[in-house]
């Protein structure tokens, strides 16, 4: 039974023995204890818990969707749905020859704009540094923002992207998923947009259901036959 997934709450002893504690677990003596509500998984030499609640904590290389909160003459501040604000330096957008006198930050990104960004650097001493200078990153011009729980993002993506690919295929929508639980959907047809939005919200609500993929498929395909 040790290899089975288990539902755990903080303080539950998952297992004892020579395992390496990974995400959301601590080692106390020889006991491995969960620190959060979630599902525990035991591998050959390590133990981790997939959390079901909680805020987004930035991780380096995560793709996030951010909203411009404000800017100074040198940088923007992004709301990334976390307890920390994202810090986007002006050089990242204007290049090395950025001059605080000549360049006006609000000409590129205004307060309220949505951007797809990557966490470039983050440690416990500083706020997360984000970058938008990469392919697929930058300002998001069109689409609808959907907010889901950050802990349900892996479910929305699915195994090797199966869930999100299915939604994209069925609706012809382009879905950008931020690890912080913010999702932007854009689609040429309004019906596709609504359908994709409904599917994403369904994943958010029913993330714990076992045959969710089938349910989503059913919902999308039934609609397909009707139209």
């Amino acid at each position, binding site marked *: 039974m040790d290899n089975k997934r288990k539902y755990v*709450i903080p303080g539950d002893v998952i297992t004892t023995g020579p395992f390496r504690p990974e995400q959301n677990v601590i080692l106390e003596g020889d006991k491995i*204890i969960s620190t959060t509500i979630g599902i525990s998984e035991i591998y050959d030499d390590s133990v981790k818990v997939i959390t079901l*609640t909680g805020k987004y904590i930035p991780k380096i290389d995560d793709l996030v969707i951010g909203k411009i909160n404000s800017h100074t003459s040198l940088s923007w501040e992004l709301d990334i749905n976390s*307890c920390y604000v994202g810090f986007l330096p002006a050089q990242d957008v204007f290049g090395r020859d950025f001059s605080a006198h000549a360049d006006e930050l609000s000409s590129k990104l205004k307060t309220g704009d949505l951007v797809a960004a990557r966490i470039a650097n983050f440690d416990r001493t500083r706020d997360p540094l984000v970058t938008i200078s990469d392919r697929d990153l930058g300002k998001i011009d069109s689409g609808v923002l959907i907010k889901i729980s950050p802990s349900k993002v892996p479910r929305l993506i699915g195994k090797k992207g199966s869930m999100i690919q299915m939604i994209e295929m069925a609706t012809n929508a382009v879905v950008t998923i931020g690890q912080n639980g913010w999702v932007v959907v854009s689609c040429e047809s309004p019906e596709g947009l609504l359908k994709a939005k409904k599917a994403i919200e369904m994943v958010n609500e029913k993330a*714990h259901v076992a045959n969710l993929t089938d349910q989503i498929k059913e919902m999308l395909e039934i609609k397909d036959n009707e139209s």
Partner: protein
Amino acid sequence: MGGRNATMVLLDENGIRCDGRKIDEPRRIMIKAGGLKNADGSAYIEFGNNKILVGVFGPRDVHPKHMSNTDTGILRVRYHMEPFSVTERKNPAPSRREIEISKVIKEALEPAVMLEKFPRTAVDVFIEVLQADGGTRCAALTAASVALADAGIPMRDMVASIAAGKVADTIVLDVNNEEDQAGQADMPIGYMPSLKKITLLQLDGILTPEEYKKCVDVGVQGCKIVYELQKKALTDKYFGKGGD
């Protein structure tokens, strides 16, 4: 509160207490996780006639900024009693007692909450006592730890809490309001069941060393009962039929 009925029998010859419980029997306890939509985590507890609602926010920005700590997150707890929570209207302004209980609960939760994972942030716990009937700090601490778990804040263990005490020369579990007023001692205990550590221990009254040990033992056993109910509340919300 003097002028109590001096003839009230706290413990009869059959070992039955004034509200019909046995000496090692807690009051009826009901815990519900969640319930508040706008808070990051919440819990509601009914502990005998105590009714307490807890909301948790965080980790989030610290305001005022100077309170933040670059090494670790901070925990802020507000314990507040509603004006209608007691028989005579209570002034809603924080009293000396409430400020003290806020501090006591904060310090009882701190060993469990892994604040060092979130430097420069704050976790806020708001405890509202809707109805009080003795032992509110224990009930509030129990509910606060459920609410923290519901908010997804990493914790080493849950904190379960209950009071033990001495009534009519006998060590009893879960002292109610009458027993607290007329009894000989009251000892609230907060306990982390998996780590086997005590995070809260107060004592009001006089006990011999033997009675003290017995009292702690009885309290720890009581905490284990409470812990099972905390576990059930969270399991029901997250893994129950149809989820939340």
